[in-house]
């Protein structure tokens, strides 16, 4: 079902049915987006639930000046960024390095199924600041257009391109240090 059909369904008064189609179409995609940002499955699951509760509550206020999918990604990304900020704050108070924490978590995570190179890439991504990480994940893994990322993040296309370029170089540099 197209996003426009879902919106039309919602406008016709069938809110629950429209929401069901949103969940059916986007829950898995948003899960993987969140999971690549926070790495841990349980955290990703919590954030995904929060995201859809917010979507359900904010659906009456949804205006068609943005696309449905960019609106959903924006809520999911904002929830993930808020979580990452809190995690960083917690790590600071406990005098731990949050990047190292995340890297070692991925290394020992039984739900990580990648090879050595993929592990190194994930470790490199873990070193990026949260917003840069979001841009990199959306562009590199999901291949979302800059215009859409701009809508999701609320940043100009020019600034986004610069941010991605910066993140890309950092990742390349990290992999070089790892011997690749």
């Amino acid at each position, binding site marked *: 079902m197209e996003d426009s059909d879902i919106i039309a369904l919602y406008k016709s008064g069938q809110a629950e*049915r429209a929401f069901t189609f949103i969940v059916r179409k986007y829950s898995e995609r948003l899960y993987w987006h969140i999971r690549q940002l926070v*790495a841990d*499955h349980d955290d990703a699951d919590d954030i995904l639930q929060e995201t859809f509760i917010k979507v359900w509550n904010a659906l009456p206020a949804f205006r068609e000046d943005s696309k449905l999918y960019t609106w959903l990604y924006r809520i999911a990304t904002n929830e993930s960024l808020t979580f990452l900020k809190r995690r960083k704050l917690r790590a600071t108070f406990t005098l731990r390095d949050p990047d190292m924490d995340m890297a070692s978590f991925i290394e020992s995570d039984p739900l990580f199924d990648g090879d050595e190179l993929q592990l190194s*890439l994930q470790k490199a991504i873990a070193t990026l600041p949260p917003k840069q990480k979001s841009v990199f994940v959306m562009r590199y*893994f999901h291949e979302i257009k800059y215009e859409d990322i701009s809508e999701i993040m609320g940043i100009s296309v020019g600034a986004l391109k610069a941010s991605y370029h910066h993140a*890309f170089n950092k990742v*390349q540099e990290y992999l070089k240090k790892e011997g690749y």
Partner: protein
Amino acid sequence: MSKSYMNEQYDITDDPHLKSNPFKAPEGYLESLEERILSLAGIVQGEAAEEVVTPSGSRRRFGILKPALLLACTFGVIFGMGYGVLRLTGTLGKSPNGEDSHYAKMVEKGLIKTKFINWIEEDLEYDDFYEEDQDFDEEEVVSWLATQYSSMELAQLYYDEK
């Protein structure tokens, strides 16, 4: 890609394998994801996705009244079961120790009359005991006493009464 035979700098854009998702979800998680999210929003899956027509007014009213009706039915069943048990054991209307209550005895003897009993008794024949305005025929009393007691016994009774 191995580290050993890398001479030039590795470019992550050249490797499609690197773009594949290295994470796994727990078994069955993605299959139940939709249902769990919908239940969070209080939506029953299937009903919302399959039904095109919104519920009619009477159906909506029934939906609202359903819990109250279920509660009333439950009370009805409990009352019915309790009544049935009392009927079967024969304890209905009796005191816990199995005897008629003092109140019931008083009513039975006519010492206490309820409005309901009075109303019932209007159509019933009164026993002599309950008649208050009964007239005695003096001659009949005298002749009955004469057949039952001797004149000496009657004199004695009269004396004792005095």
